[in-house]
């Protein structure tokens, strides 16, 4: 009977704490947000960033060429070299190209004074293939001028370039029809925003468990349990940790069922059990609330790192 | 003569002190009696603030919670409240009247390792070293054992003997027996208890009335 009374009291105590209510509310808000936000569409295509240091007719024509050929790769412009490097570094794009000022003029005349710089990362496996598409478009755009450079026929350049345009757009030259018209759809995928409710539930469970231990230690240091026997003291400790852990576990369990069904829910129960046992074991080492005050943020930091790295890896 | 005039204090809408005025003769001890929450600590801190900028009155204030840094040793804590150098402080602590406090015995002990009585002595010494003319003590006997209380009382008597003036807020009857005058702080007003005491009413009954 007394244990039930104590359970009742400890539950009330923990649920009166603003921090605890915020934790429960946070989980509920995350779950609600997930459910209310509509599914998004995303292009699963291969992104390539381009920065043209100088905007010219050639650079404009190059983008037109990308549209005309309906390339697999999504070439999109960025506003600066730093932005280009950032997006490649971050893995947001497969690779990036920096086209310096005067590149086109030099390319036409065969000079390599201002080469394109291709930025990639260790994981870029398609950068060379992407180069072929890029250069094929650059070549197409610059072909008339390359031709007039190759032949010294200054008086007839106009005729030459008109002929070039004619042949480029005619059926007389070598072309290849696209072979990829199968069922693969690389343009759109629908998905829900990935809200890490499962990971946050685990972190809050670990935190709640340690909070329960902290409350117990603080009460003990105030002398509240002075009159109790050792056995009763251990029971109080278990009750304190359990009552701190239980509400967050229940809410986390329900939230995870709502979001992902039963797939994560049972592992959550298992992790809670392990956390409970680990907290009891650590209570044998950590005997003072001041020590736990210092250790708790470090434990939380390590838990956050491990859990989120675990999801990444 | 110390004249304290029109001290008022309110927290929000609640009036704690209601234009309190009184006089204290030099070389006397005045006790402030009152139930918990009556405003005794507030009154003392107001008096300390009243005199803090004064050039004529050097006030020393010891709040209820010891104003000490746990990590530091006694001399460093005393230096916080005194312009004297470390050497001068140790010299003062070694000579009467401060030598009676016995602080030189635990100069190397950090405050967190000290007992309640030792902490109170350090708090008192940090104030007395500046040779105040008016000493304000808030619950000086709180959480002290009997020997420690006796020691503090002796220091207070020694201070009085050296023409110092004391205002002390307390619940302890031993202090009021030592005071020249005792006031009751009730509902924001200060009431002289001399008449009531002459009628044989105890301090407990005065508080209850």
């Amino acid at each position, binding site marked *: 009977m007394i244990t039930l009374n104590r359970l009742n009291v400890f539950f009330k105590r923990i649920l009166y704490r603003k921090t605890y209510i915020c934790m429960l509310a946070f989980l509920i808000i995350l779950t609600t947000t997930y459910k209310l936000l509509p599914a998004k569409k995303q292009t699963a295509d291969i992104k390539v960033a381009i920065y043209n240091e100088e905007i010219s007719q050639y650079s404009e024509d190059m983008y037109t060429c990308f549209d005309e050929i309906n*390339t*697999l790769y999504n070439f999109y412009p960025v506003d600066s070299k730093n932005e280009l*490097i*950032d997006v490649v*570094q*971050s*893995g*947001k794009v497969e690779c990036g190209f920096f086209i310096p000022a005067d590149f086109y003029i030099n390319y036409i005349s065969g000079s*390599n004074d201002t*080469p394109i*710089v*291709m930025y*990639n*990362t*260790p*994981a870029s*496996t*398609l950068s*060379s*293939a992407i180069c072929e*598409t890029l250069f*094929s478009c650059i*070549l197409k755009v610059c*072909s008339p001028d*390359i*031709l007039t450079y*190759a*032949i010294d*026929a200054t*008086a*007839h350049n106009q005729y030459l370039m008109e002929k*070039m345009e004619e*042949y*480029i757009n005619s059926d*007389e*030259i*070598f072309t290849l029809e696209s*072979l*990829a018209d*199968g*069922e*693969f759809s*690389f343009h759109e995928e629908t998905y829900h925003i990935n809200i890490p409710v499962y990971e946050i539930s685990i972190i809050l469970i670990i935190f709640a468990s340690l909070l329960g231990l902290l409350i117990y230690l603080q009460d003990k240091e105030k002398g509240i349990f002075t009159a109790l026997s050792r056995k009763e003291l251990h029971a109080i400790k278990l009750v304190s940790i359990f009552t701190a852990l239980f509400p967050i576990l229940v809410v986390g369990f329900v939230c995870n069922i709502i979001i992902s069904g039963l797939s994560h829910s049972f592992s959550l129960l298992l992790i809670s059990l392990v956390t409970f046992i680990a907290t009891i074991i650590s209570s044998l080492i950590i005997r003072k609330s*001041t020590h736990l*005050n210092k250790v*708790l*943020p470090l434990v*939380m930091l390590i838990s956050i*790192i491990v859990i989120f*790295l675990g999801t*990444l890896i | 003569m110390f004249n304290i005039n029109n001290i008022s204090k309110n927290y929000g809408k609640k009036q704690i002190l209601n234009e309190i005025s009184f006089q204290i003769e030099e070389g006397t001890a005045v006790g402030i009696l009152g139930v918990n929450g009556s405003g005794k600590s507030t009154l003392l*801190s107001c008096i*300390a603030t009243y005199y803090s*900028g004064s050039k004529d009155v050097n006030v020393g204030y010891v709040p209820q*919670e010891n*104003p*000490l*840094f746990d*990590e530091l040793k006694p001399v460093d804590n005393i230096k916080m409240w005194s312009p004297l150098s470390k050497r001068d402080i140790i010299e003062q602590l070694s000579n009467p009247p401060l030598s009676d406090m016995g602080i030189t015995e635990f100069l190397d002990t950090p405050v967190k390792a000290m007992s309640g009585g030792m902490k109170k002595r350090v*708090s008192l010494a940090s104030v007395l070293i500046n040779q105040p003319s008016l000493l304000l003590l808030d619950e000086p006997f709180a959480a002290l054992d009997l020997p420690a209380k006796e020691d503090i009382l002796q220091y207070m008597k020694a201070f009085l003997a050296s023409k110092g003036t004391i205002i002390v807020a307390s619940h302890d009857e031993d202090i009021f027996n030592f005071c020249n005058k005792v006031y009751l702080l009730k509902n924001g007003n200060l009431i002289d208890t001399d008449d009531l005491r002459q009628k044989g009413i105890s301090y407990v009954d005065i508080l209850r009335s």
Partner: protein
Amino acid sequence: MNNIKTTFRLLLTNMKRLKHYILQIIISVMVLLSICSLAGYCISKKLYEEGTAAIVKVAYYLPEDEDEKFNNFGLRIIKELDGTKEVAELIEVETIEEGYELLEKGEVLYYIIVPEMFFSGIMDSTNPELTVLFRDNTGIGSYISNELFLSYARYLGMAQSGVYSALDTLRQYDYPASDISDAQGNVNMTFLDRSLNKDSYMEKADATEAGSFTLIQRYLAAALMISLFFVSFVIMPYLQGINKGIRTKLYTLSTGHFHIFIANFLSCIPALYMAFVPCYVVLSIICKTFNPLGLITVLPAILVISLIINIISSICQNEFTSNMTILAVTLIIAYIGGGILPQAMLPSGIQGISSYIPGNYLITTIASAIFGA
């Protein structure tokens, strides 16, 4: 003057108290730096996931005809192209039937049958048909191979257009045959150079080593920033050690919340600086950098960190709440500042507010201090 003197005395007293925390600060910051750096390193490696496509096998049949020299020349060029090396594995078959067998068994994805006199046909505009058979054109690999073939076709088409245009123009204006022959050669070589000699017109650079700071350097700076914030867990008793009794006395001397805050803020700066210096030394040794000015240029960042820590410790009533708040605030600052995921990967809304949150500023200042501007 009373409150200024008292504040100054409080500041000096705080500096004396700091001596008791030096060892704890240094040990804790080194431990935290190790943990956070390791986490940053793992994240940076995870950012670069494996590529989307595996190598595609392509079988090809080359006829034995008068075009053999051209065929082998063309094949050599195709094989040498970086795009081909990256995406396709070319397998030559002796007979046409052999290629069909490989395709049926699924050992190759594509099978190219080069017709007779193919390259001559390109030169004289007869353009014989190239047969390209595929087993399955639904996978991303087939799309990538397709893109590659189309690019090569464009090179060929442009070269062809150039040659034909030159021939037409020079004949139109009655240029002598020798000039026409020279021009044809020039055009061929020029277009060959522009399409196949890409390495002359392009440099490759590793993005992780480019930019103001490499990714690893940013993560190390972020790890150090987080560690400096978390030093507050150790010095929280120091920051909140001005107990009620001390405050009561200070208030009577007209020294209020603001003065206490200033004294704490100023005395927190050396604590953080003491935590920074060993980390600076260790990171400089590991990364083989030497930027002595960094010991000075890091001061604004330390001021900002001290300010944030002290604001939180002033607002929070006890050590536990302060520590938890600092944990939450630090992680938020680090996240928005690009210390956990690169800023380019953050949602656009968060990227928008990142300029108002000091995270990015702190990370770049610390990175500049250690690795140079």
